[in-house]
């Protein structure tokens, strides 16, 4: 089951670190970083059902 409740302890710190990682990168380099990050995270999760739920969750926007 995908955990969609708050789960990151230092949430503001994490958010800042994520944005910092993109600091100074052009759009292409940022896209590449995001792709690598997604792959690393996806492998850590591993659970195929959870990954499908995550993709689905990300595709559902409020707009």
């Amino acid at each position: 089951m995908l955990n969609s409740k708050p789960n990151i302890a230092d949430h503001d710190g994490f958010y800042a670190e994520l944005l910092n990682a993109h600091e100074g990168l052009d759009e292409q380099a940022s896209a590449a970083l995001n792709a690598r990050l997604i792959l690393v995270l996806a492998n850590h999760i591993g659970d195929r059902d959870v990954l499908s739920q995550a993709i689905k969750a990300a595709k559902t926007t409020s707009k």
Partner: protein
Amino acid sequence: MTKIFEKPLYPYERSPDQDAITPVRHKVVVIGAGPVGLAAAIDLAQHGIPVVVVDENDKVSHGSRAICFSKRMLEISDRLGIGDRLVEKGVTWNKGRVFNGEDEAYAFDLLPESGHKRPAFINLQQYYLEEYLVDRVRELQAEGADIELRGGSKVSAVGTHETHVSLEIDTVEGPYNIEAEWLIPCDGAGSPTRRMMGCDFGGRVFEDNFLIADVIMDAEFPTERWFWFDPPFNKGQSALLHKQPDDVWRIDLQLGWDIDREEEMRPANVIPRLEAMLGKDTKFQLEWVSVYTFQCRRMDKFRHGRVLFAGDAAHQVSPFGARGANSGLQDTDNLCWKLASVIKGDAPETLLDTYNDERVEAADENILNSTRSTDFITPKSGISRVFRDAVLDLAQTHEFTRPLVNSGRLSVPAVHDSSCLNTPEIGSFPARTRPGASASDAPLPNGWLLDQIGGEFAVLTIGFAAPDVPEGVKLIHVAEPSDELKTRYAGDGGGGTILFRPDQHIAARWAAPSAIDIANAIQRAKGA
């Protein structure tokens, strides 16, 4: 020296059929003397079915074309009588390297497990395979088999009827007509038979061109599959290097979509590309050059009444994964025992529908795998390229991304899990030898399992006492099985009984079946 592909192996000869007053009716006619057509004819002849092969040419194919032959294909070839020749001539390989730009991303080993007669893959030019198949046809003829190979005979019209198919055949001496009770078109990706029957199909065209070259060189490259993404000598594209016998090397260079094909094939353009890849000092000679594009597609149905399509005529994939000729031979492996049973009155005609069901399923699996490889090799959008490059980038340092690198998922035999010919099983057995799977080879005290199974229904019992088998069914009883045999076949009780179909796929398995259980499973596997 005359190369094998320059020599007419089955030149046109006048057939008595041309002088017959009414069209002569044959049991089976195969269209196309490529690997799939010849395999079909040999298989049928070995089942005692008369067969005529017609082909508009009279030589083996020019250029290496299909070069990677899988373990399953070799096992089928053993049954057809050419396995030893293929393996003796072929280059056995199991290691590969993947490069990204200038760097090696990773190396792999297909790690063939021990206890199999045949290796994971061999590389061999298609013309050798065809030559050996033609030799086998000649051998069967010498033994008195009713198998005929008509070169210079082009099928120019096909008419389908309730009881037969009528064919018009064009020759240098003019056209003539014959009839066939059953027709097997193996006339390739552009199948004229398919077109004449109005069964053409759409499919996904990949907007890419590949230059394919056979190069003769005495080079120090190891016997490995080398695949490059974005190499310095072919920027932004991919490349593949593979060794074949006779110091022939296969080189595939991705060219992209907007190119002038004729221009790219000119030696003046090909040679600098190859020099950039191989180094200026490497001496090489071009044997064959072609530019190809490909599609992934299949016919809706492989069976159209008395017409049974096989190989590229029925389905096409990208070359990455070696799933073309290998799957074509699995088609005929599946089809021929069924057709022979139907012709002999030993099985209902509906058994042929299971050829359609099982091989359509296999084709879908091949199309899926080959489409995925192609999408990785030729990313279809900006973002798919971003992810592809991210995978390659991480592959050098992060082991976890290596399975995602897709330079071709190499052919493995299809498992017919949902086939109605399978008998549902009771008990716990290894998954790899479940009903629908092709037999896993293993050493026996007196040779190899697959050689013992042969090409008819056969029963293997290991560990336990030998069961009663119906008359005429071969029983292989191994009281003290090897570890490989046990790991691959034994159930929880330490043994088991396995029923193989004539194509060596597993039809049923039990702990301790009665003769009636086995007889029922055989009937079921014959579509009764």
